[in-house]
């Protein structure tokens, strides 16, 4: 039986099930470690709409104040909006309380540096050591600072940055009919404002009440967005957007109500971005080869990184990429707005593209090269992982491979990527091929090898 990870304290921060696992004590201590690490100063704190958010925000605020930080409470907001606000104010860092696409019983602390970026690998290790040493700054009465509130500025700053890169007037003139599923998340209020007021769309929105629980599986994927698909079809929308609870991920439905594969969404946005901004592309190892084709069309290079937003962002910084992201999970990263996953950039680029070309979403998607993809997972017992991966290596002795995150094997008909999950004892499989039968053959071969 696979062990469920109800609490994980690691280099990516702290994440767990609220109740007996992610306690206010842990959140407070981690925040105090963070406050100690950034040496006081101003720290921005915001959250998504999970019911545990307010409790944890009190605990985090307590820990930050105890470390001598000034706390700026930005309330319920999407994670990218919080990151952009950290980046545009003189803050020493930021903490977002969100478990992103995870189920509602989970919550987590996402930690940002003074530029509003995820801590890099070395910073994360230092912070974790500091947390374990428990030698925190303990501010005295005359060193304890204030809690300020800032609810209006962060969305405005975020919108300003996004709108610089699209033709707002052209979009507004089209008065595009848009469907939205906000999952009652941190972007609910902001997305309604963005689409209807700022971009002048005719908006048909569901699940945009931040006081209500998540009405569906929080991760926006083709299989979780049935309601959005129905809404788009019923209202005759030209496009439908599905967000996750912290507004960093985006899924898209076309005008027929079909939810696009997230890799294709990324490809459309990469295409739109490269039209406007010159530069290379960075995606993770699991992202579809469709990105390579799109980049090649613009004469640009694609860099591949291990899975994880922080990894993609680190490489994007290093190669000064124009755009990047992670296909399967709907993450679009456009550095000219900010080096973070941002559903608002994605929405704006797609609407802009529709306005410029006059094409429908299905027509735009049809313009992409066709690949067949399959994702899956295989549970493994502790101690067996090495043997399984070795068996996989041995069965494709001559194929080019990438070992930077699990194992990715390139074959003439496509590729297969196998990696262990960070949070569960399972192997994640991703395969892609030019034809459906090649895909089935490849996937079947690998999965039967691993399950043996």
């Amino acid at each position, binding site marked *: 039986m696979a062990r469920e990870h109800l609490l994980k304290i690691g280099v990516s921060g702290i994440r767990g099930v609220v109740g007996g696992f992610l306690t206010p004590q842990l959140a*407070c201590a981690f925040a105090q470690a963070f406050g100690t690490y950034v040496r006081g100063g101003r720290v921005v704190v915001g959250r998504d709409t999970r019911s545990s958010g307010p*409790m944890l925000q009190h605990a985090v605020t*307590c820990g930050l104040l105890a470390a001598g930080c000034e706390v700026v409470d930005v309330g319920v907001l999407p994670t990218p909006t919080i990151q952009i606000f950290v980046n545009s104010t003189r803050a020493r860092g930021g903490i977002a309380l969100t478990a992103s696409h995870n189920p509602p019983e989970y919550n987590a602390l996402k930690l940002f540096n003074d530029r509003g970026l995820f801590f890099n690998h070395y910073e994360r290790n230092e912070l974790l050591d500091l947390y374990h040493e428990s030698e925190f700054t303990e501010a005295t009465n005359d060193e304890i600072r204030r809690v300020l509130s800032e609810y209006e500025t962060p969305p405005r700053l975020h919108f300003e940055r996004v709108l610089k890169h699209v033709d707002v007037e052209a979009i507004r003139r089209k008065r595009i009919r848009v469907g939205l599923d906000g999952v009652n998340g941190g972007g609910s209020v902001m997305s309604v404002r963005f689409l209807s007021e700022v971009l002048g769309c005719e908006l048909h929105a569901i699940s945009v009440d931040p006081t209500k629980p998540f009405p569906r599986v929080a991760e926006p994927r083709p299989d979780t967005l049935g309601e959005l698909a129905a809404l788009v079809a019923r209202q005759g929308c030209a496009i439908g957007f599905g967000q996750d609870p912290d507004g960093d991920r985006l899924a898209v439905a076309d005008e027929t109500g079909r939810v696009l594969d997230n890799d294709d969404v990324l490809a459309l946005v990469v295409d739109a971005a490269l039209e406007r901004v010159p530069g290379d592309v960075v995606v993770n190892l699991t992202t579809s080869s469709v990105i390579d084709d799109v980049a090649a069309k613009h004469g640009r290079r694609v860099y591949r990184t291990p899975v994880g937003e922080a990894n993609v962002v680190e490489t994007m910084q290093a190669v000064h990429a124009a755009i990047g992201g992670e296909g399967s999970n709907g993450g679009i990263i456009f550095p000219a707005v900010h080096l973070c996953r941002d559903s608002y950039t994605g929405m704006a680029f797609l609407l802009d593209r529709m306005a410029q070309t006059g094409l429908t979403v299905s027509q735009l998607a049809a313009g992409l090269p066709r690949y067949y993809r399959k994702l899956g997972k295989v549970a493994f017992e502790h101690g067996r992982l090495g043997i399984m991966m070795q068996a996989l290596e041995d069965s494709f002795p001559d194929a080019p491979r990438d070992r930077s995150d699990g194992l990715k094997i390139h074959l003439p008909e496509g590729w297969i990527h196998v990696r262990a999950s960070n949070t569960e004892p399972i192997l994640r499989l991703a395969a892609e091929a030019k034809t459906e039968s090649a895909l089935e053959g490849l996937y079947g071969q690998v999965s039967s090898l691993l399950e043996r």
Partner: protein
Amino acid sequence: MREEKQLRISHVGLRGVVGAGMTAAHVLDFASAFGTFLGSGPVVVARDPRASGRMILEGVLAGLAACGHDVVSLGIVSTPVLQHAIRRLDAAGGISIGASHNRAEWNALKFFGPRGVYLSTAEAGELLDVYHLRKFDFVEWSRLGTVREETGAIDPYLDELAGAFDLKALRRFKVVVDCCNGTSSLILRRLNERFGWNILLINERIEGVEFAHEPATNARTVSLQLAPLIRPLGADAGFLFDVDSDRVAIATDEGRALSEEMVLPMLADYLLPHGPGKLVITNLSTTALVDEVAEKNRGRVIRVPVGRQAAMDALQSYRPEQIAIAGEGSGAVMMPQFRFVYDGIASMLAILSMMLERGRKLSEIVAAYPAYSILKAELPLAAQRIPELMASLAERNASGRVNLLDGVRVDYPGKWFHVRVSQTEPIVRVIAEQRGEPPQDLFDGVMEHVRSYL
């Protein structure tokens, strides 16, 4: 210079110098312990203006919400206002964040049960056990408590005071108050606004880091700024409150700073004839004037060990109508008509009512009491020598009436002394009192004996 303890966890709650002793981790654990200890129901929370109060408040809110308690957060208000709100809202309990008469760098958590009463010793012991075990009843994510802010808690509190005192008649007095930058300022400003009073406030700015002076209620602090103002302003009385307004100290119309010991005897003298309660509950270190006043009014004094906890336990041994008043020589006084809450503002109104009823100036009322002289000192002492010291003191003074309830108290005709160990600091307190002249010989003798154990 003695080293002050920077953290104290006891039946009275959590208290310490923030940063140096008391940390966010203590606060989270104590709030979670209290949330676990309490039955279900909402909890009311308030704080005094200390800057550290905001940090502590956040931790308290997190701990209580994690245990599934809805919280009503009153912001910066006095402890008596909090206690009143607990009863008004029929809450399961409350937490007061504030260090009362201590300096600004201190802070503390005080815990209240239903109806706003302090926890009994037995309940406080249970809370401490939960705290030390650190096994908290955290609820699952969908049942977490929510926090509601309520900013108007002072008004219903004032309404209750208006029901017990003739606020219209009392406003004829010209009153000056030293707020010590604390919560009394908020209450008295509202009293001025709503009831047409004209109290002149000094040090009325709510301040989190540096108080105008030490916020203790005693003759020394009254004489700093308040007493010198009384005569030039032609005021009838001056009052000084500690930061959380549960204690009061007094200046007369002649600008004299009264000993803090005077508050309890004066109020006993005022309340005993009003009956029906005939008991005065106080501690072993409080002035003998209270015995004299009680005797005159056919009341009886019950002496208990020093400290809030002993007084609370004593109160529970009697029916409310048996009790006229309870308090200590520090200016902390509770009256049965005010829920047995130490309440400096109610004490002020009772003193003014006494002046009104008697038609006398405050200085005339004070002059009618015989003079008592009190001498006090404190000395550091190694804990292991304390029992020896106490035993020898009792033995040497066997000719007097010896009371061993809390250290050693010995009564001689017309004078007494009390030697006890502080609950909050590693020191021995020596106090001696005599009707009339200071009991210098008695005091010196005891001090010499105590010093021989240093």
